[in-house]
C-alpha cells in the first residue's frame, strides 16, 4: 500500500462524520443513513482511480446523494411502503418538539430540494459545490433552495399543504 493510497484513505475517513450527518438528515433514519454512508465509503475506496483530485468532500457528497436517489427509486418500485419519513414522527414531546417539526418539514420536500438545502445549511457547501454535486447550474440550486425554504416556512406556519410525496 503506497503512501498515496493511505492519504486518500485518510481523506475518505475524515469525511465520515459529515457524511453521517448529511445522510441522517437526508433520510431521517439512522440505520438507512449509516447503510448509505457505508455504501458510499466502499464505492469511494473502490473508485479511487476515478477521483481526479479536486474537492474530495464534494465527491463523497455526490456519491452519497446518487446512492440515496437509487435507493428511493428502488423503494418507489416496491409495493410495500417503508416508513422512513415516519420514523421521526411519533409522539416524543418536550425539547425534541422543535427538532421534530423541522424533521417533518424536511420530509415534505422534494428530494432534490432537500439535498440542496441540507448541503448548504447543514454541510456548509458553497452554491457552486452544490451545483457540482447535483450536476445542475447554479441558478437551479438557487431556485431549489428558494422553493425548499418557502415550503418549510409554509409547513412550519401550519399551512400544511398537501404532501407532494407520500412515502
Amino acid at each position: 500500500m503506497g503512501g498515496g493510497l493511505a492519504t486518500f484513505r485518510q481523506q475518505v475517513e475524515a469525511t465520515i462524520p459529515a457524511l453521517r450527518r448529511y445522510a441522517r438528515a437526508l433520510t431521517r433514519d439512522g440505520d438507512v443513513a449509516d447503510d448509505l454512508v457505508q455504501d458510499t465509503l466502499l464505492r469511494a475506496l473502490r473508485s479511487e482511480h476515478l477521483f481526479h483530485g479536486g474537492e474530495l468532500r464534494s465527491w463523497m457528497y455526490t456519491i452519497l446523494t446518487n446512492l440515496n436517489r437509487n435507493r428511493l427509486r428502488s423503494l418507489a418500485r416496491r409495493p410495500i411502503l417503508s416508513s422512513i419519513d415516519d420514523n421521526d414522527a411519533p409522539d416524543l414531546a418536550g425539547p425534541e418538539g422543535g427538532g421534530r417539526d423541522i424533521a417533518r418539514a424536511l420530509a415534505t420536500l422534494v428530494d432534490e430540494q432537500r439535498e440542496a438545502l441540507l448541503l448548504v445549511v447543514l454541510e456548509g457547501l458553497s452554491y457552486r459545490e452544490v451545483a457540482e454535486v447535483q450536476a445542475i447550474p447554479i441558478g437551479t440550486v438557487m431556485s431549489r433552495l428558494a422553493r425548499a425554504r418557502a415550503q418549510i416556512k409554509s409547513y412550519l406556519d401550519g399551512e400544511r399543504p398537501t404532501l407532494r410525496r407520500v412515502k
Partner: protein
Amino acid sequence: MIDPNSPVHEDELHAFVDGQLPADRREAVAAWLAEHPEQAAEVAAWQAQAEAIRARYGAVAGEALPTRFNLDQLMRDSGTRARRPWRTMAAAAVIAAFVVGGGAGWMARGATAAVPTTTGSITADALEAHELYVVEVRHPVEVPGNERDHMTQWLSKRLGYAQRIPDLQTLGLKLIGGRLLPGPTGAAAMYMYEGPTGERFTLYCAKTTTPESALRFREAAGDRFAAVTWVSEKAAYVVSGPAERARLEQVTKAIYDQVNKDGWKKS
C-alpha cells in the same frame, strides 16, 4: 416577492442567510433589510430554519463512529466475502458479535461490509411490523401459539420454505403466535413472543435475494426498539425487541442457534 427593480436580488437574500455574500454586499443587504421588514422577517425565518436543522442534526457528526466504519475492516470484509465460505464467516461473526459488542450501540461485525442497503430495508420493514403489532393487546397475531403445527404448515406453504418456529421457553419467552405479512419478494412471516413482564420480541422471516450476511444490530429511530438482522440461505431473519441490548443478544442467539443449526431447510 421582491420588486425586480429592487437593488437586492432574492438570490442575495439566500446568500446573506448562508454567509455566501461578499463582505461589501453583506452590508448593503443588511442595510436594505433594515428598511424592508417584510423581507427581513422572511430572512429571519430562513435563518431559524437553518438553525433548527443544525440543532436537529449537527450533533450526528460528533457521535462516536460505529465500528462498521473502520475502513481497513470495511475493505477487508468486502474483499474476503467472495472468497471465504459463508458458514465459517458466520460462525466467527456470531461469536464476534456477542463477545466483542462494544461501541456506540453497534455490535455487528463480520461479513456485513458489502451488504447492500436492501438488508436495511428488510430491517426497516420488520421493525415497522414489530412496532405496529407489539402494541396490540387483543389481536397481536393471526394464529395463536398453541396452534404451532397448523401455523408452521400454513406459513411454510405461504413463504415457500419450511418454517421452524423457535422455542424460547428457556428464556422465559412464550410464543404468542404468528402472522403473515407482505415481504420484500412475496410473503413474510412474523412470530411474536412475550416474556413474564410483558416485553415482546418478534422474529420476522422472509425470502430475500440479498447476499448472505452475519448479524447486524440496529436501533430504531426513537431508541425504543432494536433489531438484529441476518441473511442465511436466501432467507432474511430479523429479531426485534425492546432496545435493551443484552437481552436482545440473548434472544437472538437462541433464535440463531435454532434456525441456523437445525435448518429452516428449504423445501
